[in-house]
């Protein structure tokens, strides 16, 4: 009887963290941070101990930092970043490639207007029901999302790094997307998707680059081509 109890307890100890692996809890907050629950339009202040759902979004202000506990590991979101909690996850390689293929199909041909003057610079309706948020411009959202993607990269969520960067580039556009695209290329590289990484670097060559940047990109391409 005692032996059975012991086995049950051991299973319980092993299984509880596994079952709770997707639970995301706020462990610490430095500075100002907010959460947007589900599809709400309101940003509310984030508190230590808050449990976040996959459909929630968090953002940090300047000089802020939020530490999350994701399952058994920690996740640190730096300042001036936006992160969809659902992006803190790994995808299978096939899922990633299929998703990218779908995005590529959706993105061709590019329907964005050639002139950028139609892009709004402020977020209408931002203040609707909002009590504690600070003003964020449209273009800042893209930058903050990229910062969130960098956090994903640092914590080795390479698949969602790629998807987040690509969707951010698609939706917000950036004046200088080189850093973002290099981040995607490096994420591909870490996933062992060498050809996709090369393609991403090749895409970078079509951007306006300095000589040093160009040399660096070409060096990376040559290095990766040797791995093929």
């Amino acid at each position, binding site marked *: 009887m005692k032996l059975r109890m012991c086995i049950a307890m051991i299973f319980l100890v092993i299984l509880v963290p596994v079952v709770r692996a997707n639970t995301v809890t706020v462990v610490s907050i430095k500075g100002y941070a907010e959460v947007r629950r589900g599809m709400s339009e309101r940003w509310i202040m984030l508190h230590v101990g808050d449990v976040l759902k996959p459909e929630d979004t968090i953002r940090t202000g300047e000089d802020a930092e939020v530490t999350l506990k994701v399952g058994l590991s920690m996740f640190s979101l730096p300042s001036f970043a936006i992160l969809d909690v659902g992006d803190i996850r790994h995808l299978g390689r096939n899922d990633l490639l299929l998703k990218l293929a779908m995005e590529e199909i959706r993105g061709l041909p590019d329907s964005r207007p050639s002139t950028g003057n*139609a892009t709004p610079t402020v977020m209408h309706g931002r203040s609707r029901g909002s009590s504690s948020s600070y003003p964020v411009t449209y273009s800042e959202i893209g930058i903050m999302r990229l910062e969130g993607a960098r956090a994903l990269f640092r914590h080795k969520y390479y698949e969602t790094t790629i998807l987040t960067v690509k969707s951010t580039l698609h939706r917000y556009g950036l004046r200088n997307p080189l850093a973002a695209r290099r981040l995607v290329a490096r994420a591909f590289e870490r996933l062992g998707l060498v050809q996709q990484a090369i393609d991403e670097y090749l895409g970078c060559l079509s951007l306006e680059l300095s000589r040093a940047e160009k040399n660096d990109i070409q060096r990376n391409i040559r290095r990766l081509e040797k791995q093929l």
Partner: protein
Amino acid sequence: MVRYTLLPALVFLCWHPLSSQTIYSVRGIAIGTETADPAHVSSVYSNPVGLLTVNNWEFTSSAVGAFNNAEAFGFGMIGVAYRFSENEVGALSYTPTQEFLLQFDNTSIHTEAGGLWPYPSALEFRDRFRIGFARRLSDEVALGISGRWVEEFLRTPGSGYLQSPGNSASYRASLWSFNLGFSYNVNASVKTGALIDNILAVREAYFPDHYRQFEYRPEKIVRIGGAYKYSRELTFTAEVNSRFAVVLGYEQNNVFDLPDFTVRQGFWMTTSSNPIEALSIGLGYSYKTVQFDAAYVHFLGQRVPSNGILPGSFQPLSSLHWNPYTTNQITASVTYAYRSGSEPLVRIEDVQFFSMVFPVNYRVHAMRPLGYARVRNTTDKTVSARLSFFVPKLMSMPTNTSQFYLNPHEIRDIPFTAEFNENILSVHEESFRDARIAVMEAEVNNYTDIEYKKVLILGRNFWNGDPLMLKYFVTPDEPRVKAFARKALYENIDFLESLPPERQPLEKARLVFNRLANLLSYYADEKTFTSLEEFDRVQYPSETLDLRGGDCDDLTVCYSALMNSLGFETAFVDVRYDSVDENGDNAHIYLLVDTKLPAYVWSSLTSNERKLVVRRNSTNRETLWIPVEPTLITKGFDAAWEQGALEYYRDVELMLGQLRGNVKIVDVY
């Protein structure tokens, strides 16, 4: 090949042409009753409406082996049926031998009509001819009549009796009697039928007065029957009749995964002390157009022996086929469907339907094949032909395939389409309709072969769960729908005109939804279980407006039609779950509405970009789409939008539903 198998079978059945009693059709014996679901030419012995199952010519022959009878095995009958027209079939059967023989202990006399007469030594009945005629009155109702000519013979012993000194005597009598049958197909799975046996009996010749008690006295019996097709394979039958007897039976096809085999069983129950009067069992086998049937009926109670009846114990016969002298017997028959005229140049070997017909998307069958016919060139030369398909009333004219060529003796599957007319939208419940498939020589336009096959037409509201089909329920051009949507905008025209252009699509969607919210409510509907499958029912938008509510698919269709009528594109989001919810559903559907706004203006509509979906519309432009959950109809547009966006984010982004095939997005243009 078929005809070469027919001949030996017929010879076998005619091998020993002795006395035999044909109590019913062989299939009818096996399943107990054919009142509601008769078939083939032998239905002249049961409910003659079954003749309508005959395609062209049909021949049958049967043999009977009666137990407890000296003449154990003999010829039963031979019959032929012919289809005169689309709705009329006639039949004739002939029994060449004595039908039913009763033998008596001939040492007695009996007193009648003031004299002493020798008791008969034998009574013989011959159900010589039967004629039958069936006519279809409508798609559901058919009427049939059959008549028969019965000869009766009475023989007396040869000597030692007062009125017949020295010589035996033989007397003959005869009569006509008629049966009247009806059938009514309630739907594809339920059939009912009624039969009045001997509704009219006309005696032609009589026995002498002192033997009149031995004449056959046909009794008028009313039979009411039903047949329920539980599944594609299993059919149950039942009958009650005016003798207070109940007959139950079933027929199962595809036994042991052998598609050509059928097993049948029947139970006869009475109100007498022995409640189960008889049991029967039978087998059927079909090979191309030849049908073989066999049945055995076993009486559980004590039967009066048909040979050697004691004088004084004789009970006058009210039925030649089911009376106290009917014995356990085994019967067999072979039925052959034959084509008229000479061997056709091109013959239809088989017809199969790819699917049943859903009235809602009837137009697709004009382009997408409904089925195929397997045709064979029976000649040694190349033949050009066309195939036509026709369902009376539901099609204005037959659809013809383009001309095709068949090499000598080639067999090929030819797909056919169907151009149904709008009458199909008046079909409310599932029903089987007769379809005519004909093949004709292309050069001379003469039909060379015709096949009749039942096609299943479902009710106008039936839906198989496929979101591609659901879009056919969206009818934005209905006046009721147009008026409703326009009124929602006209009532707020000043407000709309005050808005910047990029806000107008969202506000229009909101106004229509909220007007709908004031009228409708959500309620889950019941699944429809047919004999074949489980179907959902979907209301057309005007029906939802009339009924003031519906379930998720009804409301999605209705809101989609309203937005389409205003020029907005919509798309269904169809989600399949691995488990069922509290309503027993494992699928859900909601809607995306195209704002026609480019993706980069999302912030003019909301501060949460995930409340909008970016996807291409019919003009191949990436635009913003609003996800809406119509089941939250009573909570208003904002709640429905937020819930729709949440569901879309979970289903598509988090669960990767589109990648894994759990989510389908279907455009409704």
